[in-house]
């Protein structure tokens, strides 16, 4: 049924897509794998499983998961307020949501450190109370929440806008409580989008470097993220070791993105049904 396709010449467009994808994505990534192949299997295993590296995986994935979970809740709240209420300055706030996207991540890191360090705007009041938010794991999570927020807001917002309020009114008329309405009517509609936003924020946080290293403290086994371990390996000219760790990250990221794609398919199916 070739005549039904919008773009003509399926063969040419597919070929172009594959070529473009190959040049821009696959060739650089295969260089990564090729570099790693210069290691023998035991060397590879040693490089990617040394205690410091494993501690950095735990920190990177743990902090990313935590930040993405926080963002799932906070992002939903922000999206909800932006969609369902109107108030002065709403467009301004709507625009602010995207700032963490636009900001160079290093600037975000420096800005957060300025605010949260012991002599910072906020940090100076928390420090006497014994709360230290910079240069430790808490700082990392805060930085990751900051850079991940727009992902959740921007995936949930359009779905909320499209959701039919009549369903909520019907539920209320039929005697459902507010909580019941939220769990049984609203949540199922937005859940796929919410999960997609969660996964996107999570994936972004895993690869985050600039905003984190300024606020992490970078202490081995405690607050050292995997990206920093990779940079450290490069600084000692251990190209193969660095790419080996990068490959592990790549693999995990690919699984993540595959999962996100699955969610999006699920979401589209539900929307179509």
């Amino acid at each position, binding site marked *: 049924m070739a005549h039904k396709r919008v773009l003509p010449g399926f063969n040419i467009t597919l070929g172009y897509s594959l070529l473009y994808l190959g040049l821009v994505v696959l060739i650089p990534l295969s260089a990564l794998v090729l570099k790693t192949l210069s290691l023998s299997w035991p060397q590879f295993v040693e490089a990617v499983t040394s205690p410091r590296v494993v501690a950095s995986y735990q920190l990177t994935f743990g902090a990313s998961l935590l930040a993405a979970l926080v963002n799932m809740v906070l992002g939903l709240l922000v999206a909800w307020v932006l969609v369902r209420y109107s108030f002065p300055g709403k467009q301004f706030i709507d625009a602010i949501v995207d700032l963490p996207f636009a900001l160079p991540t290093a600037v975000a890191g420096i800005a957060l450190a300025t605010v949260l*360090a*012991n002599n910072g705007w906020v940090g100076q009041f928390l420090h006497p109370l014994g709360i230290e938010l910079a*240069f430790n794991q808490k700082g990392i999570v805060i930085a990751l929440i900051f850079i991940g927020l727009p992902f959740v807001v921007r995936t949930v917002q359009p779905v909320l806008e499209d959701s039919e309020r009549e369903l909520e009114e019907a539920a209320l008329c039929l005697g459902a409580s507010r909580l019941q309405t939220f769990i049984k009517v609203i949540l199922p509609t937005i859940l796929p989008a919410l999960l997609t936003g969660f996964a996107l924020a999570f994936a972004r946080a895993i690869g985050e470097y600039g905003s984190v290293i300024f606020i992490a403290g970078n*202490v*081995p086994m405690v607050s050292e993220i995997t990206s920093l371990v990779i940079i*450290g390996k490069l*600084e*000692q000219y251990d190209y193969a070791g660095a790419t080996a760790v990068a490959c592990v990250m790549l693999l995990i990221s690919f699984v993540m993105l595959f999962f996100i794609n699955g969610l999006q398919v699920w979401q589209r199916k539900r929307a179509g049904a």
Partner: protein
Amino acid sequence: MRALFKSLVIAATLAATTSAISPPAQAQQSLLNVSYDVAREFYKDLNAAFVDHYKKTTGQDIRIDQSHAGSSAQARAVADGLEADVVTMNTTTDVDFLASRGVVAQDWRTRFPDNAAPTTSTMLFLVRDGNPKGIKDWDDLIKPGIQVVVVNPKTGGNGRMAYLAAWGNVLSKGGTPGQAQEFVANLYKNVPVLARGGRDATGIFLQRNIGDVLITFESEVVSVEREFGKGKVQAIHPSASIIAENPVAIVERTVQKKGTEEQAHAYLTFLYSPEGQQIAARHGIRPRLESVLKQYQDTFKPLELFTVEQYFGSLGEAQKVHFNDGGLFDKLYTVGR
């Protein structure tokens, strides 16, 4: 495919360096000096002086382009194809790495005087003004309650030198390697934050107000006073510290292709001239010329200096024993955390 990967790396490196590198003009010779991060201001002054000097001696115009980033990152960029005419680094391992890739001559150390290092630096302590914790020497750094800010030896040459200085200081006083190891382990117990590089460490110490003492290069004192004003910090000269050589080398691969060997040689030789040494001294980098050193003796207070070779064989060996993954630093710093 390798070539493509390389050009991607080079593009990324160029984007990362702050100095704009414009394509070389046809009529005018130009050199690209690929250097380390904190030498930016020094080479800006030196290049201006060299351009005048070259015009005077040869009657020809020359332009010097600069590229600055972390020393090892720069060495990687040159190895991967960045067309530097000369490299001026702050650790010899970076030039050795280029020699191992055949980019600079194997015997680069003998091509210029003083191990091909026209300048040196040493590791000092910076304390807050008035020295509230009374820090005078290395032993004060391991006292309980003292917070030391230092660069991560894994990610910066500054950090490697600080570590080796701490280790060598014990040996210089007749201590055993075991005592040196214990000292260094105790020292890093007092380290609350590891900085990524020299400038990061200065920022943590001065902008974030963390720590009682910063171990860093002598030249950073000048930068701190310029950036943050005089009177914020004072330099403490410990009884003994390490000599860090700043090696220079001609990038054979590039000069052969571009035919700039002569200019590159003249440029690096200029670093040894009284004028070049003066400029270095003004930027807090130790000159080799005794006369200039004497002239700036207020800045470069005499202290017992030991070389890397004296206690560690070479920087390459120190790297293997102490800093590579699974090395002594990993053991000392990660155990007990």
